[in-house]
């Protein structure tokens, strides 16, 4: 996906700035017991800027979403280090959307 398409898709969330890399954002919202993969995935999103996250649109296909992120491996899993589990695109999308809600985007 080209960056122009990305920009056209931007604006799904309200304009609001907030601090990123917040340790509270690393825990699941529902209070369930996380493993290191759950925590590291949320930490990964917490390092995204608001501007970057605003580019996301939920109608993107899996391929579009993976291209937007740019950090997936050729085997289809996210390059997330020191984790027992692989993150596939479905879990990625669910947690990203939860993260967007938490950041009010």
């Amino acid at each position, binding site marked *: 996906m080209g960056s122009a398409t990305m920009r056209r898709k931007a604006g799904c969330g309200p304009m609001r700035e907030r601090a990123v*890399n917040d*340790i509270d954002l*690393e*825990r699941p919202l529902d209070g369930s*017991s*996380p*493993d*290191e993969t759950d*925590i*590291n995935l*949320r*930490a990964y999103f917490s390092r995204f800027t608001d501007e970057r996250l605003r580019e996301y649109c939920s109608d993107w296909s899996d391929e579009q979403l*993976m291209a937007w992120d*740019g*950090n*997936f*491996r*050729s*085997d289809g899993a996210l*390059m*997330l*280090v*020191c*984790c*027992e*589990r692989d993150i596939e695109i479905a879990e990625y999308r669910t947690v990203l959307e939860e993260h967007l809600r938490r950041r009010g985007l």
Partner: protein
Amino acid sequence: MWVPKWQRDQRHGVDSPVPTQAVSNEEFIPRPQSSQQRQWEQLIGELADEKSKKLGLPRRDFMRTSMGMATAFLASNMVYGPNWDVDAAETLDADATTEKFPKGEYFIVDVQTHFTDGVAIGFRKAEFVRNMGFDLKEDAEAYSFTNYVKEIFFDSETSIAVISGVPGRETNKNLLGKTLEGRDRRGGILPSWLMSQRKKELNELAGGTRAFCQGNCAPNHYWNRSTNAPDFPALFEQMEREVKTYGIDSWKWYCHTDPGRSGDGFRMDDEKMAYPFYEKSKELGLKVFSVHKGFASQSRTLGHFAHPGDIEKAAKDHPDLTFVAYHSALKHGPDEPQFKADGFYDPTTGDFAWHAELMKIKERNPDMNNVYPEIGSSFGLLSIAHPEMCQHLIGKNVKHFGADHVIWGTDCLWWGSPQWVIDAMKRFQISDELCDKFGYAKLTKEDKANIFGLNAAKIYGIDVKQELKALPTDALSNLKTAYLERGGQRDNAAQGWVRADA
């Protein structure tokens, strides 16, 4: 997009015995190849063209010889400066290298080797194996292990390998309370049951001792949610299984992971969590703890548990245990974005993040002799990305811990066959300038022999004299001879991840 490095190399027509950029072992995120690394890669190609033509060899075959390896190090010296002991004559005459570095000069014990369960990681030359007596299924699982045997034992001078654990936890029982066995226990890409199984297969095949294995079990793997503390009965049951049934030779801990969903990592000096584990392990007779330290670019919740600061109290409180600090606690490699952060590497002192803390622990405790810095991935990574830091890594490890405490590991297959890392250590030396300025000693052949294998032999209880007699005639050595006679060659293929567009 991330792809295995060998795929990227195929696409770009690159064939190099030494990786010219950092690959990810899934423990850190490397940067794209630098302009210097690109220059080095191009120079290797140009020199290889010229030299292979002179010798009348196809370039691909040339790159798999010791002359190809020497060419890669010579090219590195031309780009980065004279860091490696290599003569131009070695690039055209294999005997020149054999004379300088006789085969079998070192007894090599690699304490950090991996393969993956159920994932085909680039098995490309199965033909030679099929007729050579391996009793392995033709599936992805067998492929990855077969490739491991080929690249570790046939394509390198490694004498003995420790199959090293990765984050993962086995499930003891199913929902009906039935104890699970074998694959049903799951446990990630390299579970304890599989390491044990492969160790046994390999030693049976060899007719001797060629492999040791680690066990992944750690204090936070089985968690009692009602008490919010380790589920000690389940934990001890798994520990007993790993020691008694699997026959593991060391634990492998990742304090910054949490497969038991305890909600946190753990510290090695936590008296409530780690100390009961130590006591149980002593009772079981297993006293070696291999612990991942460094490489922790992940969450703020867990990343700090990879800091080596918790080794000090644990080691002092348990002088009868042995602690091996993997990666020598290198926090970030120079190919990671965080490397540029202020204070990470200070060239005026040679200190770098988290490794310096490990050195200070020994400085504060000169009599503490049960901690061993291991150099897997840190030595290989720095040798190709920052040769000066590489000299500080080894210089400081030897200065503070002693050449009799530095442990050889490579983290291969991530980096392909370990032969290039072995060659790098053979050709490694600390410059006069750094020795003068920082009080490092030149590395002697005796030091290298200790680092390559004699230190690990002490930890794992290997009788070196006996092994030196047995290994050359065991079945694995015979297979290696047959493999080489049939033209078997190293693949020059790193399995670790790099950016596809780099």
